[in-house]
Structure formats: structure tokens, C-alpha cells
């Protein structure tokens, strides 16, 4: 069996940034295992711009953003294997993978970083009634066909779900000559970034129907149309509001699911909210030495934050490799749980080992509804340590706070992140 300091599963933006940081932090031997034929992950099909504003201070396309990291990986002479599928991950960090060249092989790693990304929620998961004809695509699949293969999935398009990929694809399909008739969104707010609604829908005159869903799909062989209906507060279609839209294509952008089949096999505890692993301040999962970052941990809006988070995971994994013996010898110190309450759906991380916490620690979270002029409150025990007013918070935009170590002590039993709505 081969042995490495660090195995990184996934060569998308998270895996690349994690590898770079780990190498720079002293991990000697590391390898990235990537199932696709190229590094860069889903960025390769994201040919629109808007990437890198935070990391590089300029607007890059997805492939350009990926290339900057791929160049660094090559400069650092970090090993990677392409077209290589990880088949199994064990609790004691044995990674079993397969490719055409090497067959099935196993690697024993001192640390593992999970960077497998996420997948799109399919039609079936929504139980949308109707026929099952050709012409129903998840938005990302359509994006791949159009942007990489140059193939048009359809001419007249209805999009269900206003996640970012759906919004981006509304614009892309329009630019390539298709007619995007409408984007329907089940929730009373969009799941995507505000800037995408403006640049991808408003600028092209594509209507966004909030609180609407698809209640029927017509066409036995190829999509011939869909029926949309308004929904009530519980998301149930309201009888009498049905409207038929003729189209040959239905694109679905109805949510992303962190892809954690390997994590589950390794016995890693997963969050019921995000579908990703529960992690501590080091982005380490419930299995020591296995770290997680990027969309496999929780779905991000911006790749810049994926890279940042992944670099943290890489650095921490390198530290784990260096200190492994020391750490297993004992002194764990207190562990403080982070509680997501009052409109906060989850936090990453979900607990903090006080001894291992850096002076400042970023905590990311999402809210469960749209808030205007509300406060983010953070309590260390009963003491409020942060109170920050936000003009707008929405489920589609990830929030971030910075915790300072000086606010915490051995006596801190919990840290609570919560939203306080202003009294009107």
C-alpha cells in the first residue's frame, strides 16, 4: 500500500486551494485524486465572469480562476491523478481508488481532505408530477452541454428554481439563441445572488415568478410544455392558478446537495441541515485527521470563499500531520459547541476546541428566511460578543462573522449565533 501525508479527494477549487495551502504549510507528500479528466472541477464549465473579485481583486471566468490555482499546483510540483475515482474511504484514512491505468489501489494517508463538491438535486427528488420525457435537464448538465460540448439542449426553455446556476443558464441559453420564457421559484424569494438576478434575468427581460412551481410536465417523448401554478405559504399549489407554458426544455436549479457518500462510509457525522460533515474549528470532521472544505462541507455562493475555506483546511491538515503524535497523546481541552438559533440554519464550524482555536476564527452560516434591518447576535455563554446590523440577509447569501479567542474561556459553555429582528 502506498503511503502519503495527505490525500485530497477532489481537484476542484476546494481541492486545489487545500493542496496549495497544505504544501506551503509543510505537508511533504500529497496527492489530489480527481475523477474528471481535468483539474478545476465545475469551474471549467462556468465560462461566465464574476469569479475572483475577493481573492484576486479582478473579474475572472471560471476556467481562468481555476487556471491560477492549477498553475500554482504545478509550480509546487503537487502530485495529482486524473480520471481517478475514489471508491472507498475508511475511518483509519485508507483511501481506495481506481483508474484505467493503475486499476484499484489503496493509499494510507496521515490526513485526508474531503473536497468532492456537490451535486444537483434531480427532478425526482421534488416529486414533480407529469411525464418523464427527454428535455428535462438539471441546470448544471445543460451548462456542461452548452459550454463545453457546444450543444443546445433546447429552444424554448422554462427554468424551475432560481439558484445561481439556473440564473446563469437563463442568460447563457438566451445568448446562445434559445427563448427563456420564465424562471419559476417555489419560495417567495430567490435562492440566488442578487447580482445574478439583475445581470441574468432583468437585463434580458426574463420574468421571475416567485412562489410558483411546476405542477405538470407534458409530452411523452420530448417536453412539450409545463404547467406552472402559484403556491401558498406552505409551498402547496393553489388550485385555479395553473398556467400552461409551451416549451421543449425544463431546466432545474432546485438545490445542491453536498456529495458525502464517501464520508458516510467512513462513519463521518453529517449535519442534517447542510448534508455536509459536522466540523470543528480546524474544519476537521468527527473522524480525526479527515478534514472537509468547499461545497462538500456546505454549499457556497462564491468560489472565493471556497478557496479561502479550503486553504484553512489545508493548513490545518498540515498541522495535524506534523502534530499527530502530540495530539493523540492527549490534552484536548474544552470543546465549545456552536448553536445556530433564531433564524440561523447552521454554522460552520459547529464546535470549537479552545486550545486549537486561532486568535480569530471565521464562522460561516446561512439564515432561513429573508431579513431586513436585522441584527446578527453572537453570544459567548450568556454574554453578547457581537451585535451587527445587516440591511438584508437572505437564504441565498452566506453570512460570515469573526470570533475572537479573547472572548472565550474555559468557562464558556456555548457560543450562540442568532438573528434578532428589529422591533417595528
Amino acid at each position: 500500500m502506498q503511503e502519503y501525508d495527505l490525500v485530497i479527494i477532489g481537484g476542484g477549487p476546494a481541492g486545489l486551494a487545500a493542496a496549495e495551502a497544505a504544501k506551503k504549510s509543510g505537508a511533504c507528500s500529497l496527492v489530489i485524486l480527481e475523477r474528471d479528466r481535468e483539474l478545476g472541477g465545475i469551474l471549467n464549465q462556468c465560462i461566465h465572469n464574476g469569479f475572483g473579485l475577493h481573492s484576486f481583486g479582478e473579474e475572472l471566468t471560471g476556467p481562468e480562476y481555476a487556471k491560477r490555482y492549477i498553475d500554482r499546483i504545478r509550480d509546487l510540483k503537487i502530485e495529482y491523478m486524473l480520471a481517478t475515482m475514489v471508491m472507498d474511504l475508511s475511518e483509519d484514512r485508507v483511501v481506495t481508488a481506481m483508474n484505467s491505468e493503475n486499476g484499484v489501489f489503496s493509499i494510507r494517508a496521515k490526513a485526508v481532505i474531503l473536497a468532492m463538491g456537490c451535486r444537483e438535486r434531480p427532478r425526482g427528488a421534488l416529486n414533480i408530477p407529469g411525464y418523464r420525457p427527454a428535455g428535462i435537464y438539471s441546470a448544471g448538465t445543460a451548462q456542461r452541454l452548452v459550454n463545453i460540448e457546444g450543444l443546445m439542449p433546447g429552444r424554448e426553455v422554462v427554468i424551475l428554481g432560481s439558484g445561481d446556476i439556473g440564473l446563469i443558464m437563463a442568460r447563457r441559453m438566451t445568448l446562445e439563441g434559445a427563448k427563456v420564457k420564465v424562471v419559476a421559484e417555489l419560495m417567495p424569494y430567490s435562492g440566488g445572488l442578487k447580482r445574478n438576478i439583475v445581470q441574468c434575468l432583468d437585463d434580458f427581460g426574463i420574468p421571475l415568478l416567485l412562489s410558483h412551481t411546476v405542477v405538470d410536465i407534458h409530452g411523452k417523448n420530448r417536453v412539450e410544455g409545463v404547467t406552472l401554478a402559484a403556491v401558498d405559504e406552505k409551498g402547496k399549489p393553489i388550485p385555479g392558478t395553473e398556467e400552461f407554458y409551451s416549451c421543449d426544455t425544463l431546466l432545474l436549479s432546485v438545490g445542491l446537495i453536498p456529495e458525502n457518500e464517501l464520508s458516510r462510509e467512513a462513519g463521518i457525522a453529517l449535519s442534517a441541515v447542510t448534508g455536509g460533515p459536522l466540523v470543528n474549528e480546524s474544519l476537521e470532521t468527527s473522524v480525526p485527521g479527515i478534514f472537509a472544505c468547499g461545497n462538500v462541507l456546505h454549499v457556497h455562493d462564491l468560489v472565493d470563499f471556497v478557496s479561502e475555506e479550503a486553504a484553512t483546511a489545508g493548513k490545518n491538515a498540515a498541522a495535524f500531520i506534523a502534530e499527530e503524535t502530540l495530539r493523540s497523546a492527549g490534552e484536548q481541552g474544552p470543546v465549545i459547541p456552536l448553536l445556530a438559533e433564531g433564524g440561523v440554519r447552521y454554522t460552520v464550524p459547529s464546535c470549537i476546541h479552545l486550545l486549537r482555536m486561532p486568535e480569530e476564527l471565521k464562522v460561516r452560516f446561512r439564515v432561513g428566511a429573508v431579513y431586513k434591518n436585522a441584527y446578527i447576535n453572537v453570544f459567548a455563554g450568556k454574554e453578547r460578543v457581537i451585535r451587527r446590523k445587516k440591511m438584508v440577509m437572505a437564504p441565498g447569501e452566506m453570512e460570515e462573522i469573526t470570533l475572537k479567542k479573547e472572548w472565550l474561556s474555559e468557562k464558556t459553555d456555548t457560543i450562540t449565533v442568532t438573528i434578532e429582528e428589529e422591533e417595528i
Partner: protein
Amino acid sequence: MYDVVIVGGGVSGTSTARELSRYDLHVCVVEKMPDVCYGTSKANSGIVHAGYDCTPGTLMAKLNVRGNRMMPKLAKDLDVPFMQCGSLVVCTEEDDRETLTKLYEQGVENGVEGLEILDKDEVRKKEKNIADGVIATLWAPTAGIVCPFTLNYAYAEVAAGNGVEFRFNTEVQDILKKEEGYCLITNLGKIETKVVVNAAGVYSDRMHNMVSDHKIHITARRGEYCLLDRNASDLVNSTIFQLPGKMGKGVLVSKTAHGNILLGPTAVDQHYKEGTMTSAEGLETVLNLVNRSVKNVPRRQIITSFAGLRAHEAGHEFIIGEVEGAPGFVDCAGIESPGLASSPAIGEMVAGIVTDILHPAEKEEYTMSRKGILNPMTLSVADRNALIGENPAYGNIVCRCEMITEGEIIDAIKRPLGATTLDGIKRRTRAGMGRCQSGFCMPKIMEIMQRELSMTPFEITKCGKGSEWIVGTNKDKINVQAGGNAHAGI
């Protein structure tokens, strides 16, 4: 002129074709879709029923019990995923105990072995998620689950291997009685034959009524299902039924032969024989009714839903036999549940009727078994690596959810009666059947199809003509409208 033309490439037609393929006969299967397994056989529960539901003395009872007994060996011979996991019928009301007992007695009369009535404590030992309201169950250890697609393909491949012809995309529009035999008028010309086997599923009434004055009527009885991710596999161990009603066996909860969980079906009679749509009410009904028999059903694990059509005849009995007044026209109609379980016995019986008419000799050489698509997961690491060394395509995972390799997909395309559509590849290999429902693998499979079948992307379909996935190339319509200026309109 053929000796036998079988109309319909479902399990009944292909099981018959396989049985007939051992004889010195010129046999052809005519199917309107581009592949076998496109009607009732592709959308059902996949259950090998034990045989206690059928009314004693009926053909259904006889063929079900016989089919069930044949299945374990047949599945081995045909290399088809099959598990004899047993089934339970749950009873939730004191008043229904009598019905459960009746079912038991009926099963005994039909010759079903091993039946037992279990009290609630005994059931809980078998099934941890049985609903709290269950007070007693009927346990049938001989029931099982089979992969309906693979069974259908296997029947067809054996038949083809022994020389049976298959004509796809061929729809029978009329059947004319000739002096000797019949002439089938199809969209692709005339086909003459001595004997016709009518295994046309929901259309078997239409075929029958073309040659007989004694009309039959087949109702398309739609059943909707929800399929759960394999992550939910532990929900149940055996197939769990509710007490049967007048519309059939009710809503079941079962593992599939591949470890998914299947919930359904509903039962709605309809005129439209192509109506395989699901409905909001239907899916809701399924999800509500399963709670009567099984608790903790994880709705979040649903990966798809679908509907199938049962070929229901008013008498709820298989109609198998040479049609009166139409010599040489053999019906195999009204094959609804337990049609899949009965299919080995149906093939045997129909072939028997045909050979009684034609008295053929047995071929000198034929084989009734086949090897399925090699599943590398079943190999040891050493064997798997040897395979990849020989054929690197087996090292390349195409469908990440079901872990299906390029080698398996090429096999599905290249084998006899190989796949020509995305559905055909999906049903033969499971690529695209997993939790992402082909989102990731579809472009990759299209690439393999283009290479292996010399197709353009525009010719690749889901299920034959009219179901193309790709309609053109980027900006192609803009070019046309703007006289070649690709940037117009942007």
C-alpha cells in the same frame, strides 16, 4: 414467411421467444419501441409473488406458483439479480384477521410453501420498521425480488442467441387472416407468419380484436411509484404488502434487486394506453399509504418517481390460448400482476401451445442461459485489476452514483440486441439510475454512444425517435436569422 411472430417485446413475449428458440422454427419478435422492455415490463414492482393472492383454480394461480418455483434456477441461468427475500402481508385491524387467514388458506390451496401467520412480536424481529399498528402478518418465504429489466433483456438475448429475429420500431397496425397464417401490416411493411403470439401488453386487446369477433377489453391500470436512494436500503428486508383490495395488491414497500427502496403502486384505470404520467395526488397517496405498513419512511431519500400501466382485463385472469375462430393466433393477454413472477411459466405455456400447432423438431444446438453484463464490483481486487489490465475501460467510472464503468456501458451497447438509446443503457447497466439521476453521467454516456454507435449527438434519444436530447448547436438559430452573423442579437 415466419413460423411465429410474437407481437411485443416485454417479459411475456421474450420469455415465449426464449422457449421457442430451442426449436427449429423461424421466429420473430415485433416491437414498436426501439428496444425490448419498454412497456409494462419496465415499470412494475419487480416482485416475484409467492402466489397466495390468486384465486385458487385460476390460470393466474397456477402460473404464478410455477413461475415462482422456476425463478431461482432461471435467475441463475440467465444471470439476473434475484433475491428470495420473502414477503409479508400486514393486517392492522382486528376485523381483518379473518381476511389474512383466508389469504393463508388460499395460498396453501394454491400450493404455496412455507406460509405462516406471524404475530406482531415475531414480525418486529424480522422488520424493525414495521408500523406500530400492525397486529399480524402473513409471511411467505418463497416470495422474492428480481430486476425486471435484466430479466426481460436476458430472455431476449437468449432468444436472439438461438436465432430469433427482433424487429424494432415496428408497430403492428392491422392483422389479416390469410389462407395459411396471418399477414401483419406494420409501419415498416408487411410481415407474414403461420402463427401469431399476441403479447402486446396494454394493446393486446387491439391485436386480439383484429382477428376475433369475441372482443376483449384491456384497461390500462396506472400505478405510480416513488423510488428511494440505496442509502435507505435498510428500511425493510422483505416485501411488505397491505391486505389486497379489489384494485389489486395495494401499496407495497420493498427493496429492489439493487437495494433501492420502492414505494407504490397506486391503481387508477384509464383509457389512454400511453399515459405513464405521475400525478401529485398519486404520489401523495403512495407516501401516505406506506405509513400503514412501514414507519420511518425517509421521504428525503426519494430520487425519482414513475408510473407504469398494468394490462388489466375485467375478469382479472390471464388470457392465454389459441383464439377461437382464429387458428394460429395465440393470445397472451391480460398479463398484469403477477405477470412478471409468472413470466417463466407463461413463456413455457405459450410455447407449448405454439409447438402443439406447428410440431417443430428441437434444434441440435441451442443454449437457454446467458452471461449478463459483467459487474466488476463482484470481482476480487486482483481479478478486477486483471480485467482493467486487459480492458482499461473497466477502470473508468462513468456513473459515479452507481459506480458503473465505461466497460459495462460498452458491453451494453455491443452485446446481442445491444442498447441504442439512453434508456436502454440505463436499464441494462443502471448508469443514470442513481441519486443524481444521470445529471453527471449523461454527457459522458452520450460521448460513448457517439463513438461506439457512430451516432451524432442529434441522433441520441431517450427512447427512440421524437425523444432526442440535443436540438442543435450553440447560436445555430441566431446564424440563420441574421444571415451568418453569429454575434447578432447579443
